[in-house]
């Protein structure tokens, strides 16, 4: 049960920023909401799926998600679209192309920046898009503000005929805080008109719309100047004032409760005159913002003397002690900072691992055995973990779908410089449908020599197990047509003799097919077809155990990388040629083992056998 969705108006409860955004979208009367899953934004749509009277959809990628939302807005309904920061790069084309005609029904794009890089390939600042696309940017700092600001963003969007950006960060999305909710509004639909001069951006129409966009900028500045979301908080110590936005403003307030603070909620366009007046009231100004110095640079350009990234860290999350230290430095004071001075104890890394029984284990085991022969391009998903111990079997990872296209490019050069190398691209099912199909058809068309390992575990695993067109279920779990990968790949031009559906738990067969296909010319597709162990499609088999007295310590099974296999002891012996050899004896944790049997095939002495109830200690 979704308690936030069920909560009556005026109730106050603990909710994450993502849940608060969902509630605000629904309360604002949005008709359509779309997204592609991506940390830290995923739970917005998952939560919205529990609300009535709104069409909620997983899209195949962010470009598609935004275009569906744009269509709904043009039709006159309020529409919302969510994604992570790098998702908006994928949607950049519609984002910057829709900005001239703008929005009809309110259109809000919720974009979640992974400040501190907990689950992304970069730490980019989505507020740039507001400047790039002449769109207002809202920056909530906690759950209450997230709910309130998304509703205000719809109002501003509709009032000025412009899409609005709701810039979230991990410390809004994934922080639970108390927030009060309200009733769902029932805004009337905006009339839909056939109007090619506005909705068909051929050059002649687009040119005519340009002056409107700049006039709109002026109205948005006025809106921002009068917005109660941009508020000044008093402080008794006027030696230093702080200008801040988002969760950074919360940290600034905690760090310096006596410093006057100008908190920007609608942070673009900036209320410049108010900020100038604020700066005039204090001796020094510090701008506290996360990722890029956007507010700082614009203030400096306007002739306001401020500090910012010159004294604050250039990247990573800001915390109250960092702000406190920085302010103290600017004021020529010292504050005791035992924690910042104390070095954390050195402890081994604990990188995330593939799960026990994960269907990605054997593909990476096989690739690790072909390591000398292959260059392996990786993609975005759990299987990027193939880069780590013990497989060391991912050589590149850039962005969604790039495993296929980059393998293609690598091959074009390596076939001249190192013709013995073969290219293998690894990509998951959802990533393939997101942006992989185009790369595959491109490879076939341009006669590439690449083996594509399509690791189909029938879910978007890394973001928590969402459905997509390959699972045959929609966001509500209702049945929907299911992609047939074989038919799809053959239609894109893959030779049917080089397309294989393989059970990844059948290690010998997978290895044989992979070894054959990497040597074959042209494009091959090998699709593994077992579900993610964390989904309800997965069924456990009875667990396995190691017969301790038969284990020879060869350690072969450890190369599978299954976390259910544990080392019990190590010994050093001398082999018959007098060389020292390390032996590693193992056991299998029956609580984690899923009984997938893949380690059995790697065991020399055949001492991995089904565990019986009485044999489990």
């Amino acid at each position, binding site marked *: 049960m979704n308690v936030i969705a069920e909560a009556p108006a005026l109730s106050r409860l603990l909710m994450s920023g993502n849940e608060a955004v969902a509630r605000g979208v629904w309360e604002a009367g949005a008709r359509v909401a779309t997204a592609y899953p991506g940390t830290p934004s995923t739970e917005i749509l998952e939560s919205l799926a529990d609300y009535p009277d709104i069409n909620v959809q997983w899209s195949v990628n962010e470009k598609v998600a935004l275009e569906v939302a744009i269509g709904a807005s043009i039709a006159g309904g309020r529409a919302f679209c969510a994604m992570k920061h790098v998702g908006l790069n994928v949607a950049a084309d519609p984002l910057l192309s829709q900005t001239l005609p703008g929005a009809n029904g309110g259109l809000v794009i919720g974009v979640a920046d992974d400040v501190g890089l907990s689950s992304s390939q970069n730490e980019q600042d989505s507020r740039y898009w507001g400047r790039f696309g002449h769109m207002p940017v809202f920056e909530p700092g906690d759950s209450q503000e997230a709910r309130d600001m998304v509703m205000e963003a719809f109002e501003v969007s509709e009032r000025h005929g412009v899409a609005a950006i709701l810039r979230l960060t991990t410390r809004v999305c994934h922080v639970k*805080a108390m927030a009060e909710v309200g009733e769902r509004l029932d805004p009337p639909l905006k009339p839909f008109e056939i109007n090619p001069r506005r909705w068909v951006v051929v050059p002649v129409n687009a040119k005519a719309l340009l002056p409107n966009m700049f006039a709109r900028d002026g109205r948005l500045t006025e809106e921002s100047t009068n917005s109660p979301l941009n508020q000044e*908080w008093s402080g008794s110590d006027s030696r230093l004032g702080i200008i801040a936005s988002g969760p950074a403003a919360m940290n600034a307030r905690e760090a310096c409760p006596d410093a006057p603070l100008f908190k920007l909620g609608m942070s673009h366009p900036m209320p410049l005159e108010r900020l100038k007046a604020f700066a005039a009231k204090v001796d020094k100004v510090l701008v506290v913002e996360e990722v890029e110095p956007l507010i700082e640079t614009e203030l400096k350009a306007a002739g306001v003397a401020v500090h910012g990234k010159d004294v604050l860290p250039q990247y990573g999350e800001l915390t109250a002690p960092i702000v406190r230290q920085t302010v103290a430095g600017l004021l020529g004071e010292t504050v005791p900072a035992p924690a910042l001075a104390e070095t954390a104890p050195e402890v081994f890394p*604990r990188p995330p691992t593939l799960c026990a029984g994960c269907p990605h284990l054997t593909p990476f085991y096989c690739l690790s055995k072909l390591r000398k022969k292959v260059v392996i391009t990786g993609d975005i998903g759990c299987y990027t973990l193939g880069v780590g111990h013990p497989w060391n079997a991912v050589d590149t990872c850039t962005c969604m779908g790039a495993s296929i296209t980059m393998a293609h490019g690598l091959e074009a050069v390596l076939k001249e410089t190192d013709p013995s190398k073969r290219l293998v691209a690894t990509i998951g099912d959802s990533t393939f449908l997101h942006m992989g199909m185009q790369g595959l058809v491109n490879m076939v068309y341009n006669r590439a020599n690449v083996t594509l390992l399509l690791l189909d575990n029938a879910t978007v695993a890394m973001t928590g197990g969402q459905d997509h067109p390959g699972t045959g279920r929609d966001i509500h779990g209702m049945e929907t047509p299911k992609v047939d990968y074989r038919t799809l790949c053959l239609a894109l031009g893959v030779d049917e003799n080089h397309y294989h559906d393989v059970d990844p738990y059948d290690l010998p067969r997978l290895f044989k097919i992979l070894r054959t296909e990497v040597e074959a010319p042209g494009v091959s597709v090998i699709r593994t077809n077992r579900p993610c162990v964390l989904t309800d499609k997965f069924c456990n088999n009875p667990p396995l155990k190691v017969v301790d007295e038969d284990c020879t310590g060869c350690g072969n099974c450890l190369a599978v990388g299954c976390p259910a296999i544990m080392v019990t002891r190590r010994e050093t012996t001398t082999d018959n040629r007098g060389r020292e050899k390390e032996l590693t004896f193992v056991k299998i944790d029956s609580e984690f083992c899923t009984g997938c049997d893949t380690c059995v095939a790697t065991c020399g002495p055949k001492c991995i056998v089904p565990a019986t109830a009485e044999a489990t200690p």
Partner: protein
Amino acid sequence: MSSHTDTPATGPEVGPVTNILVCGIGGQGVMTAAELLAQAAISLGHDVKKTEVAGMAQRGGVVTSHVRFGPKVVAPAIAPGEADLLIGFEVAEALRWTTHLKPDGCAMVNVMRIPPLVVSGGLFPYPDDPVAQMQASGRQVIAFDAEAIARQLGTVRLVNTILLGAIADHLPFPAEVLRDTVLAGFRARKPALVELNAQAFDTGRATAREREMAKAV
């Protein structure tokens, strides 16, 4: 919406806040424990902020959950050196996060060891005596084998409730508030487990007290 006024608003008061950091490994119940602490604080009318950092994968990685409560909580996360309490579900993880504790903070640690593949594979050593290392930093450390107690009571799933019981006397509110919150959750979802969890909570609480008494002598 109404237009702004020129008089600055006062903004939120920054009052005393209790900071609890819960740490462990994905799948151990770290987030559930943090959620229960948050709910207990809410039941007393506190303002609460709670946040997690879970790594990329869902299992096996480091997980920390920050719980902050008081009359008004502004910043979302606990900075290094600012935690009043640390609950460690795994002993090396407790060591990893020791410096998040205030110098006079208290750590409640389950001594269970879960070596990751990089350790069992021989790439990194597991610390010999993490508890001693934590104590060497001058902080109060209460360490015991919560898993062994859980097994004695019938299931390892009770580790979570045992650790919450152990921390209960170190909170700025009566232990019974947390106990009621934990049991109310079971009463609503799994009533058959209420008795067992009550026993686990009380055993955890008694064990922590014993350890403290032993140290005091």
